[in-house]
């Protein structure tokens, strides 16, 4: 043993691998093995065939759920962008103290368990909650259903995912050389044209990062849509859960999971070819 270590020590290029070994082992046991299991189940349950994939890809119910998942992820991404961009801009263009305050507020919600945040939305938007109460108080006779709709699940997901968008855009904005903006001004640009021709393109990498991240996380979101969303507008992760927990249809659930994984990897691959995956985390 001692001799082995001594030999290894003479080959320093092996050390990083040795240090990575526990992590690699962990990933292999708790990630790759179950993933392989899911992949195998998707083509063997209940019998060896591609029938599960065929049903998922052709069945109208599944198509609708997939469509709904993409629509929701798209809406959430768009909403995160619309909320996040101005906030990131504000952070970048206010005094040090204000920026710190916004950062604190943004990251504070980031560090709260999202289960807690999800329940908080249930309380806020529920039929006896303050929002409905306010609507009644200002004179609405019939109040709209807020909870268990696409609105409530989208709102909660935006709340949860907006920090990813904000941090990504902010980190890019912070790196923009102010001299570029001055130079644009001296060349005659101002206001909206300055924003459209210079500022927006310069922040585009941050927008792309944020959008990909939010979209991809959103595709696989489980808890929030299940607890807050409309049962008629299920998302794919929720459907997988139902398949496995209620119908014990392991094959169908696995096939859907594999398709979701493939779509996610495809998006990341496209992003990687365009921008480089290493930039995704800022």
């Amino acid at each position: 043993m001692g001799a082995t270590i001594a030999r290894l020590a003479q080959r320093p290029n092996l050390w990083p691998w040795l240090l990575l070994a526990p992590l690699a082992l962990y990933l292999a046991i708790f990630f790759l093995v179950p993933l392989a299991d899911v992949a195998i189940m998707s083509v063997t349950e209940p019998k060896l065939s591609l029938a599960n994939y065929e049903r998922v890809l052709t069945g109208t119910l599944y198509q609708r759920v997939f469509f709904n998942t993409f629509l929701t992820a798209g809406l959430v991404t768009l909403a995160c962008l619309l909320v996040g961009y101005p906030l990131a801009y504000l952070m970048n263009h206010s005094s040090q103290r204000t920026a710190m305050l916004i950062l604190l507020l943004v990251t504070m919600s980031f560090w709260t368990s999202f289960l807690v945040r999800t329940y908080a939305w249930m309380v806020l938007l529920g039929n006896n909650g303050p929002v409905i109460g306010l609507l009644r108080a200002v004179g609405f006779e019939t109040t709209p259903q807020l909870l268990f709709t696409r609105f409530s699940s989208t709102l909660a997901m935006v709340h949860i995912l907006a920090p990813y968008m904000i941090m990504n855009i902010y980190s890019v904005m912070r790196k923009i050389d102010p001299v570029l903006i001055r130079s644009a001004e001296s060349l005659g640009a101002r206001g909206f044209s300055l924003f459209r021709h210079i500022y927006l393109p310069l922040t585009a990498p941050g927008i792309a990062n944020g959008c990909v991240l939010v979209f991809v996380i959103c595709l696989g979101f489980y808890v929030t849509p299940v607890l807050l969303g409309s049962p008629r507008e299920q998302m794919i992760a929720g459907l997988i859960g139902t398949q496995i927990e209620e119908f014990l249809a392991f094959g169908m659930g696995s096939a859907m999971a594999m398709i979701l994984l493939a779509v996610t990897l495809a998006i990341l691959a496209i992003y990687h070819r365009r921008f480089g995956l290493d930039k995704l985390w800022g």
Partner: protein
Amino acid sequence: MTSYLQIDGVTKKFGDFTALEKVDLSVRKGEFVTFLGPSGSGKTTTLMIIAGFEKATHGDVLIEGRSISRLAPHERNIGIVFQNYALFPHKTAAENVYFPLQMRSIARSAGLRKAQEMLSLVGLEGMGGRYPKELSGGQQQRVALARALVFEPSLLLLDEPLGALDKNLREQMQIEIKRIQRTLGVTTIFVTHDQSEAMSMSDRIVVFEKGRIEQAATPLDIYHRPATRFVAGFVGESNLVPAEIKDAGGVAESAALGACDFEPAEPVSPGDNVTLLIRPEHIRLSRKPIEGRKNVSMHVDTIVNYGDNSLVIGRVGDLQMRVRVLGADVVIIKEGEDCCVSWLPESVYAIPAA
């Protein structure tokens, strides 16, 4: 002198700190003016006030007699080249140059054609399609210059545009910038702290020190008739000798040199304190005194050889003197020896005490 750009009593304070104090300057149309001065002397601040990115605490800036102090930077029609070029990384060279035209609502096809013409003028024919990161430092510099000139600005400001280039490229760009400036006749202010650059390029040099203008004059006047001791010391190499006027006709006396003849450029009177300036290249080194020149004996401490010339540093009494000699002439002496140094009265310039 009809002035085109007029800086009128401009003072700039950052909190308690006074970055510029009562700066007055007037620039003629088409003139090439260089701001020269040590770091922190207020060159960039002055430029930024002209460009509109900083507001003067007091004073005014006028172009053709009209105040521009209230105009925002984008309304001033002033072209600026920043030290790090500040090219837009997401636009090609041609799109960068087209940008100011685009902001002036000039159609894309006509604008891009004009941009290409401008790129040809700065020697970048056929490179319009490249992105800034695909261009060398010198090429980026040229794009920045083309972009600052393409919209026919009323003024061109360059803030140490050559600072990041190596020596050869620098000299090449100095000539290039001069050529383009002459071709277009644009009034130009060029900031540098490289004095030889200032000497070779400018119609006029403005020497800054601690937020004030020490002198604004032609390169030759700056060199041969510096207004202050600071200018004499900052521009070129110099021997500066404190002295007192003995005769208004041109005799001054100093402790180290004794009585010393000079040709007064400005009226002086006996008893005035002055600083005598003798440039090292105006001093001759010899074994024996030379007739018709002021001769003193010098002890040689150090000889620095530069190949085509040498710098001889020695002492005349307590006074340190620097002498420039051509390569061949230096062989007559060695370090540690005594020799004779001499100069003509017209090589001595008396700087009045402030």
